[in-house]
């Protein structure tokens, strides 16, 4: 293989690994936002799940069980967020910010209590296809949870765009009053959307821990949750473009980390800010904001 092909394959596979946790979480955040919650606790969901997956893998000795535990921890954060903001109507930003602080504190503390080992799920390597030039290794040699994306992305899309649940969820996000008049339990749908978001963000965080890295360390997600929010905005509240955003952010990061090895240097601050800049630019240049759910970040309560 030529050098260029090797470089491309390196950056591509690294990009996929960096983008995958974002993509999982973005599928969740997308659903939460379509239902009307600008969910900032996605960071907490990912971090909690990353910790939970390694901790449970440590207890059970199975990385797969760890992965599942991560999903449930994400869901737990989601349901706490849902209960607080869509049952008791605490401001969703307050809940999100506090949950982020809470989970960061708890996980940082808990790692100091015991030593967690290394746990990693198995790698899948698809025969024949993995030998394809350039794309072979990046696409066909991965930790197996990555391939869950192949099912979860269409499922997410189908749930939102085609299922009754998704229809009701979108109605709840666009115009909760009207949805309510139609007998839709707006806050229930929003809580469910947050639960879904928790599961997927949890999967993203757990994948980061037991899939990619194989261990947990303090504040391991390091702001990836906020990146996911930026991706959904960048994608203009469309699933396809949101995922494209995740891929872009992942690739940009991969490029940043690979460029020195390829013999180039770039300003790291600029590259770190790139996703946020891109999300802002997308909103400035394209009319993505028009797709913004009409009641995003607005609590719903029946008017007296």
């Amino acid at each position: 293989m030529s050098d260029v092909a090797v470089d491309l394959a390196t950056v591509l596979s690294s990009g996929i690994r960096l983008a995958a946790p974002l993509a999982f979480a973005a599928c969740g955040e997308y659903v939460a936002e379509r239902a009307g919650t600008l969910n900032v606790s996605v960071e907490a969901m990912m971090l909690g799940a990353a910790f939970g997956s390694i901790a449970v893998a440590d207890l059970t000795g199975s990385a797969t069980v760890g992965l599942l535990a991560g999903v449930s921890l994400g869901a737990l954060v989601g349901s706490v967020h849902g209960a607080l903001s869509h049952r008791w109507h605490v401001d969703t930003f307050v809940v999100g910010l506090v949950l982020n602080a809470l989970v960061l504190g708890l996980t940082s503390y808990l790692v100091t209590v015991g030593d967690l080992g290394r746990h990693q799920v198995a790698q899948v390597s698809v025969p024949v296809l993995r030998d394809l030039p350039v794309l072979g290794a990046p696409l066909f040699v991965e930790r197996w949870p990555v391939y869950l994306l192949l099912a979860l992305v269409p499922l997410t899309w189908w749930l939102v765009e085609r299922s009754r649940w998704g229809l009701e969820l979108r109605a709840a996000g666009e115009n909760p009053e009207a949805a309510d008049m139609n007998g839709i339990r707006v806050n229930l749908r929003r809580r469910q959307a947050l639960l879904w978001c928790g599961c997927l963000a949890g999967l993203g965080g757990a994948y980061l821990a037991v899939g990619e890295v194989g261990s947990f360390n303090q504040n391991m997600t390091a702001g990836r949750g906020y990146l996911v929010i930026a991706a959904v905005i960048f994608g203009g509240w469309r699933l396809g473009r949101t995922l494209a955003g995740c891929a872009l952010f992942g690739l940009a990061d991969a490029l940043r980390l690979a460029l020195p090895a390829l013999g180039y240097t770039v300003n790291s601050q600029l590259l770190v800010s790139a996703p946020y800049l891109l999300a802002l630019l997308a909103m400035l240049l394209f009319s993505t904001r028009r797709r913004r759910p009409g009641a995003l970040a607005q609590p719903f309560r029946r008017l007296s």
Partner: protein
Amino acid sequence: MAPEPALRLRGITKRYGTVVACDDVDLTVARGEIHGLLGENGAGKSTLMRILLGLETRDSGTVERDGRAVTVTGPRQAAALGISMVHQHLSLVDPLTVWENVVLGLSGPVRRAAARAEVGAVAERYGLVIDPDARVGTLSAGERQRVELLKCLRRDPAVLIMDEPTSVLTRAESAELFTVLRRIVAAEHRAVVLISHKLTEITMATDRVTVMRAGRVVLRRATAATTEAELAREMVGREVTPGAAVGVLPHAITRAAPAAPARALRLAGLTVRPGLDDLSLTVHSGEVVGLYGAEGNGQKTLGDVLSGLAIPDAGTVEVAGAPVDLRRPGALPAAGLGIVPEDRHHAGVVLDLSVAENLVMTRLGDVSGRVFIDRRRLRRRARALADEYGITAASLDAPLRSLSGGNQQRVVLARELSGRPRVLIAAQPSRGLDVGAVEDLYARLRGCAGDGIAVLVISTELEEILALATRMAVIFRGRIVDELPTAGADAERLGLLIGGAA
């Protein structure tokens, strides 16, 4: 044996704090009839229907469907019981398509193709033509009403409730709607409850009528056995001039023709894309001009321009001979133009501010220094206005939200007239008001003209125009297609004009 009525409510009572919204209400609706439910603003009509749909919990009373007592826990279950409602404030979700809105609130999987086909079929059956894939947000008011109706009909309800369905419709659209309703009861043997303020509509379209006042039923009668005058009296509890409300006596207005008519308002070549197309119109001091047309022909855009909400692509607005810089916020009120906007909740008032604050909010300068607001002056002024315009509120410091619709309208009118404007624009002024309030409103508008103010009434209701205006302009697709005195208005010709056929 007489069949059980489709719907029977007994002794329904609902209290909100000290307000008794429904007070021991009985209502019986039989299959095959259109049942009119008539009442002033705040009489409790909507509350009664919301209880029926399970959107509110009742304090006491029973509901029977086909003779069986039922408990309704929500719209979904109501639909399962065969009760469906077209809401006063439409329950559509703008970014969704027509078919998605139609299936919203049902259960079971969403079958896209089947749903679209069914929408088409129902639309066909009732002559309610609509594109099932259109986004609801792009539809006109009439079309949206159609979607609401389709939505109800698709659920094949035994009882169909329509809460003020015609308030945003033109006459032709209303007539079309009543044809559909008649077909529903006659051919399909359903029951319809029609809620309305419009007496003519009730007398024309219903078989039986129930009148509510302050939460109680005050009259129950076959429509044929009553008259508009009687209904109006029962509704408000006193004699009213029917003409004021429905324009039966359009030319009973006394007006002193101004000696030298001054051009108070001149609109020249106003163009807003989309909406207005080279619209020109002049209104003189002391004159009431009616702008008549079917909904969706640019009235709303014109209202927006005159409220400072939209900036025209071309054209000028002159008040008392001087052009107004529309780009500057607040230029229009400063130039002496007052406006009672079409959608008062949306544009006219701030529901969460106090009544007093709402009364002064466009003319803050009068109650404040350069920086600070003088609370005492503010209250004094608000009190004076409230007294002058007969605004009844528990307290001037109460939020405006707590006022009835009629009183909210009075607040807007009082505020807009308090600046002694040269021009007053009133868009759909009687929409949502009961006859008593309308009577009062019309008297005030006429009074304004008497004081030398130029009044422009924008309305989709011919009666309203005929009751108020001396001259009318007909708007079609954003242009004035004809101007004529109301005295000799020929209904047939007007029908052609607003339909764009003349």
